[in-house]
């Protein structure tokens, strides 16, 4: 590690959370992309930053990376101000984008070397990091394969390796697992957690709600505003509007039509009713209270209800309930 990095490390205040966001706001003309958002992320945590397209996720990350200036509010990353201390901060922060910004015409090894030099690693340190990253990404034996020839999972792990070649203490991952197969995704999350065990703090955005379940804490952003923030299991308890009922019937296609008309005529206060394979999921304020009337409405139309039970909402259920 060079002299400059060494001095900076001493400046990092380890007592305060590595990511602090206070009243962070970004407007483009009349459009509020990020609207007075405040949160903090503890050291060694994996924080999921989730929201629909256009909700302000990427704008938030870009402000934290010092790529754009907030309109108002402030942020602190490892104690640095992204606006005034951009360069110093960036030396300690890693960023991996959805596009896996790798050079396809370079080999795996050359990509690592390229990023290592960009971050100013010295020769010995670079050689060491290169070996570590190839090991981590499972690329030993494939060091000299052109990146364009690597499959999605390897590219993804290589991209992560390049993003952390300079041993950052905070890593931002913007939809890092799009289009990667499930086994590689599991491996990738294994790597994320291996990093956090060494004290690295991770902020990740994803459209996969089953991945959000893997985060220690998640924040939902909608229309630029933070609408909920907690652990996935806590959010399921506190932020689900209504309860989810799973209905097993003889003729689900017909049953869902009947329940939809019951919804439209306000016979039963259903927030949502939809087919889930051979089952029907209904969202309603109180599952117990309306079980019997649902059973009766269906029975009147000769539909036998096999089972009718309240199920735990998925994080996707909670997300949709929070942002719509």
């Amino acid at each position, binding site marked *: 590690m060079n002299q400059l990095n060494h001095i900076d490390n001493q400046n990092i205040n380890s007592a305060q959370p590595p990511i602090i966001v206070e009243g962070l706001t970004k407007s483009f003309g009349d459009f509020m992309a990020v609207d007075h958002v405040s949160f903090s992320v503890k050291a060694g945590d994996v924080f999921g930053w989730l929201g629909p397209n256009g909700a302000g996720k990427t704008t938030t990350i870009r402000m934290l990376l010092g790529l754009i200036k907030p309109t108002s509010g402030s942020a602190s990353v490892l104690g640095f101000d992204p606006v005034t201390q951009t360069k110093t901060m960036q030396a300690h922060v890693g960023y991996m984008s959805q596009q896996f910004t790798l050079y396809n015409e370079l080999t795996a090894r050359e990509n690592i070397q390229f990023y290592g030099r960009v971050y100013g690693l010295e020769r010995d340190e670079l050689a060491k990091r290169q070996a570590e990253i190839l090991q981590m990404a499972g690329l030993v034996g494939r060091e000299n394969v052109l990146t364009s020839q690597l499959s999605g999972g390897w590219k993804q792990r290589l991209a992560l390796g390049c993003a952390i070649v300079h041993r950052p203490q905070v890593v931002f991952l913007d939809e890092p697992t799009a*289009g990667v197969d*499930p086994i590689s995704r599991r491996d990738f999350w294994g790597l994320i957690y291996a990093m956090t065990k060494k004290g690295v703090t991770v902020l990740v955005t994803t459209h996969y709600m089953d991945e959000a379940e893997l985060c220690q804490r998640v924040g939902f952003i909608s229309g630029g505003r933070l609408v909920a923030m907690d652990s996935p299991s806590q959010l399921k308890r506190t932020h689900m509007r209504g309860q989810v009922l799973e209905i097993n019937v003889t003729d689900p296609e017909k049953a869902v039509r009947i329940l939809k008309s019951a919804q439209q005529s306000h016979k039963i206060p259903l927030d949502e009713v939809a087919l*889930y*394979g051979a089952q029907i999921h209904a969202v309603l304020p109180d599952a117990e209270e309306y079980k019997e009337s649902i059973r009766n409405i269906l029975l009147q139309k000769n539909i036998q209800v096999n089972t009718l039970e309240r199920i735990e909402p*998925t994080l996707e259920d909670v997300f949709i309930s929070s942002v719509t």
Partner: protein
Amino acid sequence: MTDEIALSMEGLSKRFRTSGGWNIAVDHLSLQVRRGETYGLIGPDGAGKTTTIRLLLGLLSRTEGKSSILGFDSMNDVYEIRERVGYIAQQFVLPADLTVMENMSFFANIQGVTREEQKNHIPELLAFAGLTDFTDRLAGQLSGGMKKKLALACSLIHEPQVVMLDEPTLGVDPVSRREFWNLLGNLRAEHGLTIFVCTPYMDEAERCTQIGLIYEGKLIASDTPNQIKHLVAGELLELTPSRFVPAQELMTGLEGVLEVQTYGEKLHVFVDQANRRMAQIEAALKAEGITDEGIRPIEVRMEEAFISLIRRQTNTEMKPAPEIALKGRV
């Protein structure tokens, strides 16, 4: 729902010649989809999903085997298929400089839908897709989710009996994804439409009546989502050990443990009997000085099932199996 077959494949194969030899994109796929089913072909990128759809539609010629839609052969009856089947290709782009309404008319004209039919049908489809208030908006200015809904409406313009959707929710956020699947549910419930959909999202399997898991061109399993989850032997336990790697290695060698999967900072352990093995696992962890935040039985989801089925498939092909190798070390 009738027992009539809407889609059929028998030993369907496609090989591409590459610089290094042959690439088998689709490897002897055999499956049937009954009318009114929503069949999900689920697998990672590069598994052969898109090639399968293109073979079914006759857009690519097969190397081997047979396939048909509604009894029409994919290669010989291309026009009959086109009249009766709707299709959204993966990177499907609607003309951005046409409005929603102009897009609808454009596709209606291509499909030979008469003016008279268009008058009734277009407003119906716009209402179905929730686009009635946006008829004058340029397609290029719609949100990602609305574009997908418009594409779906356009694919239904000629009242097809089957729709083929190639990763229709790729890059779409969870809210729009849910809305899109609710529309597909309505098509099934109200019109008995047969839907064949490819997706890399494991959780979308739950919205299908039948699914096929495809990996490296091969169909690993094809059944109802529930049955597929039951194909995986054993029961699933979840634990959060204080020391991850030692715990993982320890689990792999324990009696009654069938498979160990990592899940972030957690371990998912398939065991023969959850009740019997829980105490045993806790004791083994304790003996090694590893603490745990509480071991609990959990339901197998599609993702665990898929990973397990793929592993077992690759393990039978490549010896020695990684599990066995690990056991030897412990």
